[in-house]
């Protein structure tokens, strides 16, 4: 408490200077000897929309369940508002969770489900009714209060689960794959609804998802989890444009990884000798000549053209198109470079298909600016 409190006095305006609302300190949780969460540390601020992203089984739900109180960490501490909550049972934590299965009470009506948590607080009846009505209106279910959960559609059930947890006014709202059961269109709408709700209520949201687009759309910051550890924490742009590791680069979106060794390093500008040729790229961290690294280039960072570029301004790779994928707004190309390596390139279809100049077996040149490629050391 004391350590965190010191920063609180001065920097109330600056979110980063405030003590974090939730702090995981070197938390480890093992199931039968296998660590589901492994020595993980993470701070989440008040009012932040935090996305937890990771492949299935990497420990996302376990992390949430530890915060909600359903699992106890084997090592490390979890602080909420600066207080260690290890000894606090789930029903006393000012944290509410929306379950992956929604876990609506089938024997209660929609209104009964939403009122359930308020009844535990022994509020007066009119107060409960008022808050339930208010919450049902917020999630646009005011005329369905009398229905039972099995009489609702998937999207409506999702909103009941949302209302039931939010009506408790938690400090932190945990959502375990809240949109997994919705179809694509409803999912996109609900993403924006969730963001609007979060902004309106000013709560901290921690949302688990394994859909990277969803995380990138909604979250202020994203934690990418892999095998119980956080591989990277940052904004969507940071994670996409400046992945910390090869694994993160490949997990988020499409990427071409060209392995090589550093031949020249001058600050951020680095020259790497790869099997595809000598490439100039940007390195966020310091690298030394001779170090083996990977150059990561997203497919859309390539400029693909049928004519050999005139100048020698950027990096140039020559090859032959082996595969074209037409996605409507974009086209994806697989290009077999003269060095034998196959890379993926994407370009926005600004012209209509019939006029598109690049086809199968065509010789193309891929160029990219040095700052479009990132050097990855791990």
């Amino acid at each position, binding site marked *: 408490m004391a350590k965190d409190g010191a920063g609180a006095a001065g920097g109330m305006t600056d979110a980063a200077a405030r003590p974090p609302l939730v702090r995981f300190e070197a938390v480890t949780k093992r199931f039968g000897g296998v660590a589901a969460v492994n020595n993980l540390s993470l701070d989440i601020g008040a009012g932040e929309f935090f996305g937890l992203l990771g492949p299935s089984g990497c420990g996302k739900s376990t992390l949430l369940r530890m915060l909600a109180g359903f699992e106890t960490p084997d090592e490390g501490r979890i602080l909420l508002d600066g207080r260690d909550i290890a000894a606090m049972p789930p029903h006393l934590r000012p944290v509410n969770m929306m379950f992956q299965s929604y*876990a609506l009470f089938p024997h209660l009506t929609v209104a009964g489900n939403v009122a359930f948590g308020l009844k535990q607080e022994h509020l007066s009846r009119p107060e409960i009714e008022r808050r339930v009505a208010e919450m049902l209106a917020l999630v646009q279910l005011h005329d369905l209060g009398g229905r039972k959960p099995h009489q609702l559609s998937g999207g409506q059930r999702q909103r009941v689960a949302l209302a039931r947890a939010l009506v*408790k006014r938690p400090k932190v709202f945990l959502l375990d794959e809240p949109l997994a059961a919705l179809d694509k269109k409803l999912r996109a709408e609900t993403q924006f609804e969730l963001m609007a709700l979060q902004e309106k209520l000013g709560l901290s949201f921690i949302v688990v998802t394994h859909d990277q687009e969803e995380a990138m759309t909604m979250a202020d910051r994203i934690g990418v989890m892999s095998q119980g550890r956080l591989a990277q924490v940052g904004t969507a742009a940071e994670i996409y444009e400046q992945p910390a590791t090869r694994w993160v680069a490949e997990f988020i979106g499409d990427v071409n990884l060209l392995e090589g060794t550093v031949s020249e390093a001058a600050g951020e500008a680095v020259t790497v000798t790869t099997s595809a040729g000598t490439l100039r790229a940007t390195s966020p961290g310091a690298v030394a000549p001779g170090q083996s690294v990977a150059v990561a280039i997203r497919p859309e960072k390539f400029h693909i053209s049928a004519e050999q570029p005139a100048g020698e301004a950027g990096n140039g790779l020559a090859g032959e198109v082996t595969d074209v994928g037409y996605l409507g707004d974009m086209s994806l190309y697989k290009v077999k470079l003269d060095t034998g390596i196959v890379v993926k390139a994407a370009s926005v279809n600004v012209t209509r298909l019939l006029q598109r100049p690049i086809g199968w077996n065509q010789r193309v040149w891929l160029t990219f600016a040095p700052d479009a490629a990132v050097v990855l050391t791990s």
Partner: protein
Amino acid sequence: MLRGFSRFNLASLALGLAFLYLPIVILVIYSFNDSKLVTVWGGWSLRWYRALLEDSAMLDAAWVSLRIALLSATAATILGTLAALALVRAGYFRGRLPFSAMIYAPLVLPEVIIGLSLLLLFVALNVDRGFWTTTLAHTTLTMCFVTVIVQSRLLSFDWSLEEAAMDLGCPPLRAFLAVTLPLILPAIVSGWMLAFTLSLDDFVIASFTTGPGATTLPIRIYSEVRLGVKPEINAICTIMIAVVALVVVIASLLAKRNAASRDQHALGAPM
């Protein structure tokens, strides 16, 4: 064409039903017989039901049976439900397998053996046999049936419901009472009803464990029949059949509703 009501299917169905129910139907019809002779039809009458009302020994026995059934079914339901909860919820613990096997043993053990072993126990403990020993014995017998019924419900129970209740501010016990219990109640009630009917018709175990002054209805009937079948016996048996049938029908309706609500719930839970 093997499906539908072919003549062969109809005949075999009728024969099967007759085989099962003819004796019972005859018993019921003859309970309304006016004649004193069990085998001679003398017209319809409620005479033997009236006679039954004056047969205090028979009524006492019925009252003893009813009390034993109510008490033992209730005790068995509480214990059986707790056992089912322990088995399902505790997950894996050392000795789980022997524990569950031991709970199920009375399902397959011959009743004679259960009765005899209880008799030996009561004799060894020097307990006077009677009402309470029989109640205890019936609790032992019927508890495992309750456990089986409740356990099968709990195996499909979505435990995140209970977690959700705790998350919303319920202490664990209240979460159980407010969410889990109402949802598994139909299974518990059908378990109780099964225990009740089992206790009501038990003859074998009661004959080992009861004593003077606590004659149960089946024992009473058996001892009367040894002196010759009186039409009154038909009447009391008809009443018993009615009670048991009623309980069984209610229990199966509950089980059906239980299954239906489970399906609805399964629909409710995505994926």
